[in-house]
């Protein structure tokens, strides 16, 4: 991989130069407690030192509500027009979120390819940025604290500059387009980068032990712990909304007043919702809240592993931060693990 250096004083110029490559989306601070990815009109809004955004980048590829078709009684379902050439740049994505997107890629590809997801995905370049974990991050445990591909450029903060890894030819074009802003990387910078990477380790406050986890989840399928969590859970869905790898959606037809035309839409759903597994006639395959909570963990750390060989959790800590009931994935899994080995 090619590596160059971007002195921080050149960052703004570089970002401005990027607009040639597409509309920029990047983290901004909404208020003291909240950062979000947002369309950038003015590069001074961008805050690359952010902690975690409230919603992950999935919102751009699997929007909370998305129109799939227009329909009418006569013409049936007509696909919405998509601008296949509209290019975007998602700037300032953390390593865990890049992993999150790659997990969604798995889900939306395969035998059936979801074009709604991939149209945006293929037209968006990703520029990653390094970060400092806080007390809710456990990406190290999930092996997502570093990322080797899935981005075009990746900026690693080494105090005065960013070390820029160039992963794709598009990334290379971006750098070349403002060559003068970049410097060659010397030995010290490499050393500095290694030092920083090592320092990052010190910040982690929590760890999720993955060893043997799928098996433990099987063993503890009937654990009382699930019921305890079920008592606390509000089925509010916050955890699923903010999760970079939760992808469930609901589909519905929205009619116009004429009762004949309208739009077919999909919107984020959550397996924590009461009606998630409810079928016509009233059978609910997961009517108990405890069964639904369990399903979320089971799917991420057991089901997904069986299906794709890795868990669908990237340790971003969002669900920990946003659960009103303070249900904490690391604590839950740790508890389940201890249930298995009493």
């Amino acid at each position, binding site marked *: 991989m090619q590596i160059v250096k971007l002195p921080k004083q050149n960052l703004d110029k570089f970002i401005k130069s990027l607009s040639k490559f597409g509309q920029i989306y990047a983290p901004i601070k909404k208020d003291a407690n909240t950062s979000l990815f947002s369309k950038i009109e003015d590069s001074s809004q961008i805050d690359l030192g952010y902690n975690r955004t409230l919603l992950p980048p999935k919102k751009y590829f699997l929007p909370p509500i998305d129109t799939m078709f227009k329909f009418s009684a006569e013409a049936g379902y007509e696909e919405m027009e998509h601008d296949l050439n509209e290019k975007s740049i998602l700037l300032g994505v953390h390593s865990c979120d890049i992993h999150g997107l790659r997990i969604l890629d798995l889900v939306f590809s395969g035998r059936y390819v979801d074009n709604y997801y991939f149209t945006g995905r293929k037209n968006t370049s990703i520029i990653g940025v390094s970060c400092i974990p806080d007390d809710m991050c456990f990406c190290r445990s999930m092996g997502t604290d570093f990322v080797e591909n899935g981005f075009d450029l990746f900026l690693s903060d080494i105090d005065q500059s960013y070390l820029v890894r160039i992963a794709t030819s598009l990334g290379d074009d971006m750098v070349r387009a403002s060559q003068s802003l970049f410097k060659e990387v010397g030995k010290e910078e490499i050393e500095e980068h290694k030092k920083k990477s090592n320092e990052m380790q010190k910040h982690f406050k929590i760890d999720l032990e993955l060893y043997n986890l799928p098996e433990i989840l099987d063993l503890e399928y009937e654990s009382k712990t699930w019921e305890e969590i079920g008592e606390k859970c509000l089925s509010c869905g916050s955890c699923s909304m903010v999760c970079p790898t939760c992808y469930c959606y609901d589909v519905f037809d929205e009619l116009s007043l004429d009762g004949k035309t309208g739009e077919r839409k999909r919107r984020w*759903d959550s397996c924590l919702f009461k009606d998630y597994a409810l079928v016509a006639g009233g059978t609910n395959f997961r009517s108990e809240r405890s069964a639904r909570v369990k399903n979320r963990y089971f799917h991420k750390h057991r089901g997904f592993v069986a299906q794709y060989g890795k868990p669908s959790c990237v340790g971003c800590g969002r669900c920990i931060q946003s659960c009103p009931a303070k249900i904490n994935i690391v604590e839950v899994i740790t508890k389940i693990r201890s249930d298995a080995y009493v």
Partner: protein
Amino acid sequence: MYNGNCASHTDNIYQPHLARIVRRLPQIKDHRLFQLRFEDSEIRQNFSYRPGQFVELSIIGTGEAPISISSSPTRPGVIELCVRRIGRMTEALFRLPLNSLVGVRGPYGNGFPLEQMRGNNLLIVAGGLGMAPLRSLLWYALDNRSLFKEVILMFGAKVAEEMLFKYELLTLLDRTDMRCLLTVDKDEEGTWPAQVGVVTKLFDLFEVDPKITYAAVCGPPIMYKFVSKKLLEKKFSKDRILMSLERKMKCGVGKCGHCMIGYKYTCIDGPIFTYWDAINLPEMI
């Protein structure tokens, strides 16, 4: 930028194709058989499926839901769906007049593993609406009679008025190349031409070699329990018991998450599962 190797712009997997309701055949109360014909001749000709697969059926303006294909691929040109009126979409379907347009996409799901099943005996055990997907298999087997050894159908209803496809199935009683066991729990008028009594009793009426037999089971959730018990008693191995399962579905193509059981999607890994899968996955039956 995404640089994986997923195929670039194939067709929209969610695109429903217009089909016309060309026949509506009332069955028992709240059940109807709908014959659909795709409007587009190319789709009509290319639409191939295997028994046990389903389609996503859209009522324009109401919504979409999965429905098993009830007809057999051996009889192309139209597809038949047997639908029970139970909720929004199905209500709307029952309201539609003949010749209305609906949306259909599919076929989806694995369907029955015909390649494996060939050359074996076929035991079809159906309960209620479970006959819908199994009817496809039944006619497939009867139309390709040489592909299977013995063909046995077991189907029960409370009373004659509640038996789906009654007239069609009664004609099979006379066939010599299969056994058609149709039972009703009660026959007060004494006019029922076939068996009377609970379905489980039918198991005593025949002997098959479980080693060369596949059982295909579909019915209401409670049925799986007792039928599988019977079959295990008859020494069926767990992977020769095939069951069609049902879960909530929104997409039919393994994306929306709803039909996930453990780590299998009912829509793409199923809906046909072996009994082994079923007991091995939590929540399955």
